[in-house]
C-alpha cells in the first residue's frame, strides 16, 4: 500500500471503520466480562464502565444508645462503627443534620452543641463524647457520604461454579454434544457415499470408477475384474 498521494481518509479510513466495528461488536461482551468480576451490589447501582472509578453514595446510621456509654477521663463516651462489617464503603464526610449531611470531614472532631463532640473516621468507627451522661433509648442519627472504591472479586464465579446442579449440567451438555456431533457426521457421510455409489450418473469417464455396480453390466465386469 503506497502512502504517497493518499489523503488521510484513504490511508486511515478502513482502519478507523474496522476499529469502530470491532468496538461495537466487542463492547457487549466486555460488559459482561467486567460485570462478572464486579461486586454484585455494585453491578446493580452503577454501570460496568465505571468499574474502575470510585463511586460515592449517601447513607445514614445511628450511634449506639446511651446504655453503651463508658466514662473516660471525666467524659462519657460511646464508640462503635456506623458501617457493617466487611463493607468496602469509606466515609468521606459526615453530619448530624439531614440538611447538612457532609458538614464535617471524616476523621475530624465535630463540635456539636453543649460540648458534645463526634468524630467519625473513614472506616466508619466513631467516638461520641459528652461532658454529661447520655440519656435516651436511641442513639444519635449520623448522616454520611461514603465512597465505594473499585472492588473486583471472583465471588460470582464461585457462586456459579459451586451452585447446585452445575456439575450435572456440564455432564449433560457433554453427553448431548459429543454424540450429537459424531453421529450426524457418520450418518450423513455414509448416506452421501450411498448416493454417490448408487444414485448418481457418471458425468465424466473418471467418475465411472466410483459406481462399481449400477445397472449397466458393462462396467460391472470391469470392476469385478479389478476386484478379482
Amino acid at each position, binding site marked *: 500500500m503506497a502512502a504517497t498521494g493518499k489523503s488521510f481518509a484513504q490511508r486511515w479510513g*478502513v*482502519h478507523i*471503520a*474496522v*476499529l469502530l*466495528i*470491532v468496538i461495537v*461488536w*466487542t*463492547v*457487549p*461482551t466486555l*460488559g*459482561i466480562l467486567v*460485570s462478572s468480576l464486579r461486586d454484585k451490589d455494585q*453491578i*446493580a*447501582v*452503577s*454501570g*460496568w*464502565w465505571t468499574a474502575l472509578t470510585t463511586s460515592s453514595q449517601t447513607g445514614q446510621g445511628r450511634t449506639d444508645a446511651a446504655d453503651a456509654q463508658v466514662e473516660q477521663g471525666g467524659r462519657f463516651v460511646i464508640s462503635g462503627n456506623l458501617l457493617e462489617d466487611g463493607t468496602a464503603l469509606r466515609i468521606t464526610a459526615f453530619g448530624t443534620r439531614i440538611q447538612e449531611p457532609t458538614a464535617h470531614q471524616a476523621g475530624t472532631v465535630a463540635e456539636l452543641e453543649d460540648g458534645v463532640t463526634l468524630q467519625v473516621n473513614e472506616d466508619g468507627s466513631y467516638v461520641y463524647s459528652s461532658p454529661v451522661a447520655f440519656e435516651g433509648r436511641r442513639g444519635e442519627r449520623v448522616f454520611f457520604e461514603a465512597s465505594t472504591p473499585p472492588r473486583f472479586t471472583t465471588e460470582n464465579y464461585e457462586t456459579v461454579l459451586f451452585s447446585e446442579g452445575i*456439575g*450435572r449440567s456440564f*455432564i*449433560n451438555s*457433554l*453427553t448431548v454434544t*459429543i*454424540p450429537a456431533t*459424531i*453421529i450426524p457426521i*457418520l*450418518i*450423513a457421510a*455414509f*448416506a452421501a*457415499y*450411498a*448416493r454417490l*455409489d*448408487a*444414485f448418481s450418473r457418471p458425468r465424466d469417464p473418471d467418475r465411472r470408477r466410483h*459406481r*462399481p*455396480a*449400477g445397472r449397466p*453390466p458393462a462396467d*460391472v*465386469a470391469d*470392476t*469385478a475384474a479389478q*476386484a*478379482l
Partner: protein
Amino acid sequence: MTGQIISAILTVVLGVSGCVVYFWGANRLLDMIFPAHGVSSQSAIDNLRRQGLIRPWLFLGPALLILTIYLIYPVIETARLSFLDRGGQNFVGTANYEWALGDREFRQAIFNNFLWLAVVPAACTFFGLVIAVLTDRIWWGNIAKMFVFMPLAISFVGASVIWKFIYEYRGDGQTQIGVLNAIVQWFGGEPQVWISLPFWNNFFLMVILIWIQTGFAMVILSAALRGIPDETIEAATIDGANGFQIFWKIMVPQIWGTIAVVWTTITILVLKVFDIVLTMTNGQWNTQVLANLMFDWMFAAAAISAAARPSRSSSCSPSYRS
C-alpha cells in the same frame, strides 16, 4: 457425581460405537452373504451387483429412518390433526385455522416473524460482506474478524443476558447501568425502556441476532472473496473501474452463490428464533414470534391452567388490552 460421569461416558460410548458398529457390521455382513472373493468369477460378478443394489440402502437406512420418524411423520400428523378438534376425534374442517387467524396474538407473531425475516438476514449478510471486504484490506484484519466472530460462540440465552446490560433501564435522573441509556443520558436525552418501546422493541431484539450471526456471514463471505481470481480485479482496475464499481460489478457477481447460501442459512435460523424473545421479553409488548407463541400455548399454558387457550392468551399479555 462419579455415577453420573460413568453413566454419561457410557451413554456417549454406547451411542457412538453403536452407530459405528451398525455401518461397519452391515457392510461386513453384506460382504459375507454375497462374497466377491473365493467364488467363481460369474457368481462374483452377480454378487457384486447384488451388493451394489443393497449397500446404498444399508447406508441410507438410518438417515431415511430418522427423517421418516422425526420429520415426515410429524409433518403429516400435524397437518392431519390441524383439521380435528381438541380431542383429535372429530373432523372440524378449517375451524382451527380460522380461530388462529382471528387470534390477535397469532397475527402479531406472524407479522413479527416476517419483520425478523425481512431485517435480520439482510442485515447480517450486508454487515458480513462489508466487514469481510474491509478486513481483507488491512494487516490486522484477522484479529478484527476474530472479535466479530466471537458472538457466534455465545448461546442465545447468554447473548440475551449480555444485552440486558445494554438495554437496562433505570428511571430518569438515576444512575443508568445500561450502556444505551447511559449514552442517551450523556447526550442529554431521556432514558427509554428499550425492550417495551412499541414497535421498535422488535428491532432491538433483532440487533442481538444480527450481532450474533454477522460473524457467520463474514467468515463464509470472506472465504468466497479470497476465491475471486485477482486477474478479474486487475483487469477492472486497468479499465479504470473505481472501488464501488469493482465491488458491485466484479466481486459481488462472482460470490453471488455464496451470498445466497449465507442469506438462506440465516433465513432458516431466523424462522426458528425463540430463545432471544423468550429471555428478553417473553413475547410481551408486541414482540411475540411464532416459536415462542407455540411454546406458550403448548407448554406454558398447560402449566398455568387447563383453561381454554384464547382466555389465557389475553391474561398472559395484559398489554394487548390497551
